[in-house]
């Protein structure tokens, strides 16, 4: 008798499936409530990407315009595409009397970046991080080359205690 119960159960489960998808359809057709489509680029003002989105590499600056980069060039070496160029210089620290390296320009080529994240993993200072900017469109490719350390920024004075 499993023949007939198969037919009835089969029909029943198909109808349950159709009820679920039907609910999706009619709710969205009538109210557009659950529609997840982002109407880019009409929604630039309201477009917020989720936290883990890899939009671009950015450098963290605190409110005193200080960053954590000490120009070690590890990110430059880690990048498989050569998207990062570090320009650094040395200057005499009058307190210790030692030459200290500091960053002049942390140049980041967004146009060559594949968002692999190796630079961010490589950075021992956690100086760089992901930014969630989605809208990178430019008419000139040169505008995609960015300097990550802000003008006039300094390195943070490191706190002594280890984390």
């Amino acid at each position: 008798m499993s023949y007939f119960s198969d037919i009835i159960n089969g029909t029943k489960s198909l109808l349950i499936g159709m009820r679920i998808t039907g609910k999706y359809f009619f709710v969205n057709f009538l109210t557009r409530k659950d529609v997840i489509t982002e109407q880019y680029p009409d929604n630039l003002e309201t477009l917020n990407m989720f936290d883990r989105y890899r939009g671009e590499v950015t450098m963290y600056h605190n409110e005193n315009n200080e960053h954590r980069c000490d120009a070690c060039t590890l990110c430059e070496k880690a990048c498989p595409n050569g998207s990062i160029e570090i320009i650094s210089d040395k200057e005499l620290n009058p307190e210790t009397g030692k030459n200290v390296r500091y960053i002049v320009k942390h140049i980041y080529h967004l146009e060559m970046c594949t968002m692999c994240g190796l630079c961010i993993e490589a950075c021992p200072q956690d100086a760089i991080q992901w930014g969630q900017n989605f809208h990178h469109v430019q008419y000139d490719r040169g505008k995609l080359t960015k300097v990550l350390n802000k003008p006039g920024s300094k390195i943070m004075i490191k706190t002594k205690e280890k984390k």
Partner: protein
Amino acid sequence: MILNIFTDIHNLLLGLMSAKAVHITELVLIGVAYLGIFAVLGLFLVWLERRVAGFFQLRLGPNRVGPSGLFQTIADALKLVSKELTGTVKADKQLYKIAPYFVITTALMAMALIPFSQEIQAFDINIGVFFLISVSSIGVLGIFLAGWSSNNKYSLIGGMRTGIQMISYELSVGMAVVTMVVLAGTLQISEIVELQKSGWFIFTGHIPAIIAFMIFMIAGTAESNRVPFDLVEAESELGAGFHTEYSGMRFAYYFLAEFVNMFIIASIAVVLFFGGWLSPFGITDAIPFAGLFWFTVKVIAVIFIFMWFRWTFPRFRIDQLLTLEWKYLLPINMVNIVLMALMVWLGLTF
């Protein structure tokens, strides 16, 4: 009123040339008109499908080109027209080129029988339903030829699967239709619709008619090669199935024909079960264009059910497909015909 327009055109032509020439001109005119309907219908249904699919999947679907994205498919068609017609070197050239036209021609032939309203039906013969079923089974030849002549394994497997599927499900469609013919007592489409003035067949035939309708919907989905019966194309296994090697306009023919076939199946369902162009309870019988309106509404409702199937059910495996047909649909169908015959004989129909 529509009839008046037709007679006006007829008289105008009669004034211009001899009776025989008028006959031929009218045939050509109607042919061109149906080609137009074919194209517009295909494009509209593709748009509808994409839009409906969007809502099912919590998306919006095409909404940029024209109001609600209505012109999106026209843009797509223009793109396809402008594309190069590629083909394989080892293809059977003649068959390869002819195959799409089989599909188009049969779809057009079947469309000639569809009663869009009381007045608009190109070809109303006394074996209408029979003609429809037989013509729609020729269409499979086009798919089969495409699979064979492409000289490509994927295409060939796709074509073979069509053969299996069509032979099986043709039977179910046919028997579901026969069940309704038993109730109607005629094969002529206009008469079948007239008979439903006292009540649509799905109500007058009640239980066996509802069973026949369900079987018709299942088998009709299989007939038009739609999900969940789209083993012919099965993107994940066969590339694009029988039309893997087709590009440009030839591909577009298959694509449009698939959607027009769905329209034809839906129209047959509407004619047999839901009273064709008749309005519910005869509320708008006096208004001249109402028939066209009601027919369109009903067909789109049935097409929506097909789309609902598509975005709900996963694809069958080939053995499941055959099990469903031969072990379930066919026996139920046979019992159902006998049931219907008994009901008609005992006068249990309304």
